């Protein structure tokens, strides 16, 4: 299997099939990133496609071919931001809340217990993710939305594998504390922080 840099050079030489390989390699991550920024509004697929095309157009300006992943992530982020700006009016009409507001841990813990409807559960998860530190959020979405492996996340975000492993470990523990009521299994004594 060819690495990113080899595929990038093949693209620059005019072999568009190589770009197809790059798309298949990164589409999950690009889609998850788009979803992370604008997913609620059902535009993640459009944004992902737009970002992948923008990346193809900008390929000649890619300075370090081996860092294609982080470069693609930056393009995706920018594309999503542009999309949100373009659709600001629509977005504001659809939701009374800003798409990314900061939420305190207490806010996230509250909410109805027991079996929740899918939409409500999703809303809870979204709120919980919003309470995580900024740099934890995208790896969490990449992991749980697209089930990306640690190596795939590393290639896309540019962070080291150990960093990703640490991030997902800490995020996993925080999410477990925040979302302990989501799992339906009864009778299990769940671990809770002392302060609770």
């Amino acid at each position: 299997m060819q690495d990113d840099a080899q595929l990038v050079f093949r693209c620059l030489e005019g072999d568009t099939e190589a770009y197809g390989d790059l798309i298949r390699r990164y589409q999950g991550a690009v889609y998850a990133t788009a979803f992370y920024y604008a997913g609620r509004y059902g535009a993640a697929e459009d944004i992902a496609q737009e970002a992948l095309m923008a990346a193809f157009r900008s390929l000649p300006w890619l300075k370090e071919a081996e860092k294609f992943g982080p470069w693609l992530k930056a393009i995706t982020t920018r594309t999503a931001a542009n999309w949100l700006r373009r659709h600001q009016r629509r977005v504001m009409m659809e939701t009374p809340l800003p798409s990314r507001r900061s939420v305190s841990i207490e806010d996230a813990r509250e909410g109805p217990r027991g079996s929740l409807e899918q939409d409500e559960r999703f809303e809870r998860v979204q709120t919980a993710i919003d309470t995580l530190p900024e740099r934890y959020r995208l790896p969490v979405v990449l992991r749980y939305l697209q089930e990306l492996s640690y190596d795939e996340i590393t290639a896309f975000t540019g962070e080291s594998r150990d960093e990703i492993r640490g991030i997902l470990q800490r995020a996993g523990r925080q999410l477990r504390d925040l979302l302990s009521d989501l799992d339906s299994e009864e009778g299990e004594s769940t671990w809770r922080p002392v302060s609770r």
Partner: protein
Amino acid sequence: MATCKQIGSMLQARIDGELGPAEGVIVDQHLAECAACASQLRSQQRTAAALFEIFGPYRLQKDLSGGVMEHLPEMKPLRIDVEGVNWRAKTPSAHRAWWVAFVPAVAALILLCLALPIYFFWPKAPESVGVIGVITSSAGAVKCTPSYGNADPAAATASTKGLVACGNRYETGPGSRMMLSLRGPTHLKLEENTRVHVFDDRGLSVDTGRVHLDVAKDVRPFTVNTPFSTITVLGTVFEILVDSQKTTITLKSGKIRYENDVSQSELLPEEQVIVTSGDIHPMPHKVDAAGVMQWADAIVPDQNAYNLFTKEIQPKSAAELPGEEVFAIVTTRQNVARPIAAVFFSWQPDGFSSGHCSYEVRICNEAMVELFKTRIDASVFADKSRNTYQVDVPGEPIRNAGVLHVKLVPDFSSGDVMASFTKVWALGI
């Protein structure tokens, strides 16, 4: 034996199947023995499972590559130098041209180079105070009233060689006359019973009396105010007679613009106009200007005073005047070259009986190759009976010269007074 804390930091990786084989064995061994950690694992597993389940419906369902690849051919084909890209990839920071770093410095330098000449060659404001001329002649009862606050006694005297300062007033009594030479050089001759107020080297007012002016050409207009009119000139010879009723202006050469309180008009050479207050259309009439101005010829500058003027006042601007003059004479008529036997000079007569400079005359052809040279002696200009001079071509007449260049180079060894040449022409055979 690993501690619970160490194991705790590996639980998520265990759930995600991202542990190495050795770590896996250690974690599994610990979990088999430690109920707390095993419980923690289960709860974290349930959370992970819940997250996967909740996110499941939003997962990317289709392959995006098809849709994107369909659009790629529509995009502009990439025309790039792959070698260059590789080089850029290897040396990401070195791809900028070396000279780009110098652009701000060079731009600043260019701006400086542009600014310096502007700074140094910006026309200086005329000095409104200070000495602007010398009294080059004074006879009879003359009076000087210095401007307020002028402490220089040399600028408060009305006698010959006295200095003229901005704001001074001069008055000639019955039977007295005087001449002022101002920077330029501009010469003022005052007839008896005249009162003038000198503002600066390009402006004065005549309250009463008769004044003859020979104004130096300058970009700044020369303005004369009289009770009934304002006269504006650039460089010219004229005379003004002011009495209690009217202003009479006589022009010898150049052009004058005059205005009274209701109208304005222009005066041409050899014309005279009488301007009174309220006259809507003063009518100029032809006159023999030289005859009218005859009185002024009697006023000749004192040589010592004029030397002081050329030394102290005029040199400041004399440097700007080219001492050397070149006249061009076309020697062909209707495309036929005319042989030239002599060159003829004429000049404007001046009031000096001596102290003229002599001239070296160089005659050159079209290519500025010198054909011959000769000399006009200072005594020629001192001889007031003439204002022309002929230089004969030595030997054979000049043929096929095209445009003849006549260069006049002053030689100041015999004096400082330069002749004002008016015309140079060639005589054929």
